[in-house]
């Protein structure tokens, strides 16, 4: 028990099967406070499924996910969010028909019940917070544009911004730099450095340079199972990992 107190997230024995196919098979790992953890692995290794399981999008078949001592597998999606877990999807998922401002505003942690949403007013606190986040994600100038007009990279940032405004304790990012130009990628890395300071982060990424840049620890997955775990150097020298990557 004492051990869990140090961990923000502890995943134990997590398994999910789709019609008998075990997409995630008996996976366990632990994330500490302020840690940046990156999950890597070939396509189909079960990385995204892990995130789906943590945020409640997919229900696990077996195992437990504890977030600050709270069992997440029993909670519904929005309760998991309220518990302090934020998640960014692989494809930027934002509200194309709304402005950037409105996109951010909707993620502001107020008026999240039906009645609250009906009576929600846009007060100065909201406006200030949105401006602050917009500044951070390089979209200050775009606040009144429709989100559909943003570039791919800007959409990624916007989604990250939408998470930041909720101030989650655990931030989960699914390929945050995929499809970005080199300069965007640099900006994103800086952004991540900045925002990860006071929270734990779980990232899925393919780009090894990027991983090296940000990761505290790395978990390598293969065929639904954890293949190796440790520092970047450690997993890079792990023969099992080498075999999987080179064997392909």
């Amino acid at each position, binding site marked *: 028990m004492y051990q869990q107190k140090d961990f923000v997230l502890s995943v134990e024995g997590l398994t999910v099967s789709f019609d008998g196919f075990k997409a995630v098979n008996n996976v366990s790992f632990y994330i500490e406070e302020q840690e940046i953890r990156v999950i890597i692995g070939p396509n189909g290794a079960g990385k995204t499924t892990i995130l789906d399981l943590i*945020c409640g*999008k997919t229900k696990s078949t077996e195992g437990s996910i504890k977030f600050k001592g709270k069992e997440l597998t029993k909670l*519904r*999606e*929005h309760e998991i*969010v*309220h518990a302090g877990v*934020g*998640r960014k*999807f692989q494809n930027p*998922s*934002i*509200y*194309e*028909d*709304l*402005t950037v*401002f*409105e*996109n951010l*505003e*909707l*993620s502001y*942690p107020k*008026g*999240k*019940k*039906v009645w609250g*949403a*009906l*009576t*929600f007013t*846009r007060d100065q606190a909201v*406006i200030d917070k949105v401006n602050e986040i917009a500044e951070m994600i390089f979209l200050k100038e775009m*606040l*009144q544009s*429709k989100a559909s007009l943003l570039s791919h990279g800007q959409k990624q940032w916007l*989604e990250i911004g*939408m998470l930041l405004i*909720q101030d989650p304790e655990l931030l989960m990012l699914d390929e945050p730099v995929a499809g970005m130009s080199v300069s965007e990628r640099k900006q994103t890395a800086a952004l991540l450095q900045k925002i990860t300071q006071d929270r734990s982060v779980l990232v899925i990424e393919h780009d090894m340079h990027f991983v090296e840049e940000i990761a505290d620890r790395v978990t390598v997955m293969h065929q639904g199972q954890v293949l190796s775990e440790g520092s970047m150097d450690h997993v890079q020298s792990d023969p099992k990992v080498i075999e999987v990557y080179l064997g392909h």
Partner: protein
Amino acid sequence: MLQSKFKSLTPRNDVLSFVVLAVLLLVLLPLLFDIFRLNLIGKYLTFAFVAIGLVLSWGLGGILSLGQGIFFGIGGYAMAMFLKLEASTPENTAIQSTPGIPDFMDWNQLTALPWFWEPFHSFGFTLVAIIVLPAIFAYIIGAAMFKRRVGGVYFAIITQAIAAILTILIIGQQGYTGGVNGITDLRTLLGWDIRTDSAKYILYFVNAILLLAVLVAAQYIRKSKLGRLLVAMRDSEDRVRFSGYDVDNYKIFIFCIAGIFSSIGGAMFTLQVGFMSPSLIGIVPSIEMVIFAAVGGNLSIFGAVYGALIVNWAKTILSESYPEVWLFAMGALFIAVVLAFPKGLAGLYETYLQPKVDKLLDKKLKKDKAE
């Protein structure tokens, strides 16, 4: 500034639309038409209540219900039950074997009023029922479906099937419901004869004002954060869900609102037309109601009103002059709406007329803009 919204949603345009519609409904139409036509318009407008509800649930929320006739029927039947009880005084029904109960019950050998009819002696209860019953019913359907993530096409087909079931039930339980004939021969409301021309005028205005009130409510919902959330859900439901919203509740809420609006329309239908029957509940009327919203433009609450008016008007005129071709015309209209102008009348307005209107307004309101 930050308060500004989309161009298409600028309050200025909405205020203008609202004023134009109010003038049309409250001044122009009553001046232009005799009470017969005006009463017909009143009838068409009761469908506009449903169409506005559909704009909120379908247009904004992406929830297409093919069973809005259910709610139209709940309101319509609630009102009809009250009026029928009032019409079935022991004096009026003296020739029956059991005087004092509605005539169709007597024909079906009922000798006492069924328990669920009893509360409809009270006008207050009836008014509450018109709002609360559809909300409860919509909540049950919505909770059952949305909590299990039934959506889109499935939801449409299931609501359609529910409308079909309800029709079969009402027709089959004729002793309690009046069966396929519906509840007819309604005469007075709290002693006030609703069949006279003056009553019809008054009812028309009550209906029009209620409609405008519903429009204001719809506008409020649309402009609130909840309205933006619905749009957001349509774009990316998961993102909303993982931003900490219980998405299902929002869907249930808006479905309930749409149901309540429809129910008010149904009640006003009964008052103005003087009867209610299962033919307004089933699959065909329910789909037609969707079509009113589609013709108006499924994103525009004002368009919904015009859609209901114009489609019904066309139906009446065409079926009077060319009974053989009106189905062709209706069919062609629906296809045209989908293929040629998917945003409906509102879309046409936005593309062609609104820029001009904006220009005009801009000129006049330059001073206002200076601040």
